[in-house]
């Protein structure tokens, strides 16, 4: 009977989520669990937690580079012409939250607009950083003046941590742009040479770091929000 008592420690849905994430279900049960993942948010969350628990095991699996043809086949399967991404300024989806949502984001966007008033538009890039389902921050990058304005919206900082802003350029290590503030806008002075790499191929990210910022020069804490840079 001890088995029954112990098994009672995991509710049925959680047990099923664990079995699905581990991969032990036979075909029919697996298909049924997969349908629940697609339809039920709460069940999908349980599965995601188990995937998070188990995924580090994959560190023990050796990397095996696939043949170059695999990437070509993937490219061939993408929709033939990806819709060109509208600039953020024209993108309704970006502005819709202003009408609906948090006053904080609205304030952030207005802050960005006021700041932009004095700028030459063509050089400026903006990024809306999202994480945990929330708009965390709006950043405007002005390479000509070597500044980044970081206006927080719903930026949650837990524990004795400080948020640090990073420039992410494909193929390179993240570079710190400086510490930001969860409560008020911060204008960061950033070397022009670094900001020259802030193009619409790059992105910004926020990580949580010890007071004073990352001790290593690379993000050491969790990345809590990310957003691509977009030309105005």
């Amino acid at each position, binding site marked *: 009977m001890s088995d029954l008592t112990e098994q009672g420690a995991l509710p049925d849905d959680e047990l099923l989520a664990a079995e699905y994430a581990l*991969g*032990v279900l036979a075909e029919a049960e697996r298909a049924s669990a997969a349908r629940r993942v697609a339809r039920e948010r709460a069940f999908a969350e349980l599965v995601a937690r188990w995937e998070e628990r188990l*995924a580090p095991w994959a560190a023990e699996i050796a990397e095996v580079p696939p043949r170059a043809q695999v990437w070509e086949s*993937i490219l061939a399967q993408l929709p033939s012409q*990806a819709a060109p*991404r509208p600039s953020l300024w024209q993108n309704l989806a970006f502005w819709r939250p202003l009408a609906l949502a948090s006053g904080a984001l609205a304030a952030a966007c207005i802050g960005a607009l006021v700041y932009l008033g004095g700028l030459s538009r063509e050089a400026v890039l903006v990024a809306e950083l999202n994480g*945990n*389902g929330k708009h965390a921050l709006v950043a405007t990058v002005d390479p000509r003046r070597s500044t980044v304005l970081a206006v927080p919206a719903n930026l949650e900082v837990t524990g004795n941590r400080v948020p640090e802003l990073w420039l*992410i350029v494909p193929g390179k290590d993240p570079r710190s742009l400086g510490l930001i503030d969860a409560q008020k806008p911060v204008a960061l002075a950033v070397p022009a040479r670094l900001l020259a790499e802030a193009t619409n191929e790059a992105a910004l990210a926020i990580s949580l770091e010890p007071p004073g910022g990352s001790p290593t020069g690379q993000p050491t804490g969790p990345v809590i929000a990310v957003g691509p840079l977009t030309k105005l």
Partner: protein
Amino acid sequence: MDLDANRALVAAALARIPGGDRAALQTVYRLTSAKLFGVVLRILGERGAAEDVLQEVYVTVWRKAADFDAGRASPMTWLIAIARNRAIDRLRAQRQTSRLEPIEAAGELADDAPGAESALAGAQEHARLHRCLGGLAERERAALRGAFFDGNTYEELAERMKVPLGTMKSWIRRAMIKLKACLEL
């Protein structure tokens, strides 16, 4: 490049994909495909099928990148889950039964030691999982390994370890309870 740097790069590239940025998908592919191919190949055991599944994985990433939330999950966790799920789906569909060598529970922990990968991102999470797996009975750990690495079902594991199906279910369920408590997630 260390793990956390890699994690931020992958997360940033994923964030660009919903806008239709193929270069961003290529960045994700360049940084993660060798790991995901290793995972898929281990489950399927055959290069041709593994390459097919790897294609499906990145086409899925292209379609579903908007679902990825950097504030909630690590990008590697998200990608590994997609890769394992696709590979296991394929395995179930082809009803492959060729990988049913007997599992010897004794002595398999030695292979578990974190080694060359410790410099990569996630080393801390891996060390913690490894410690918790070390707290399981050998037979429980061996059964979980067969499921995670080889994609075995309860029935296949029962056959490989020569125990009744009910016994195997009870081992795995008990192991999952202990694992959750130890990881405190």
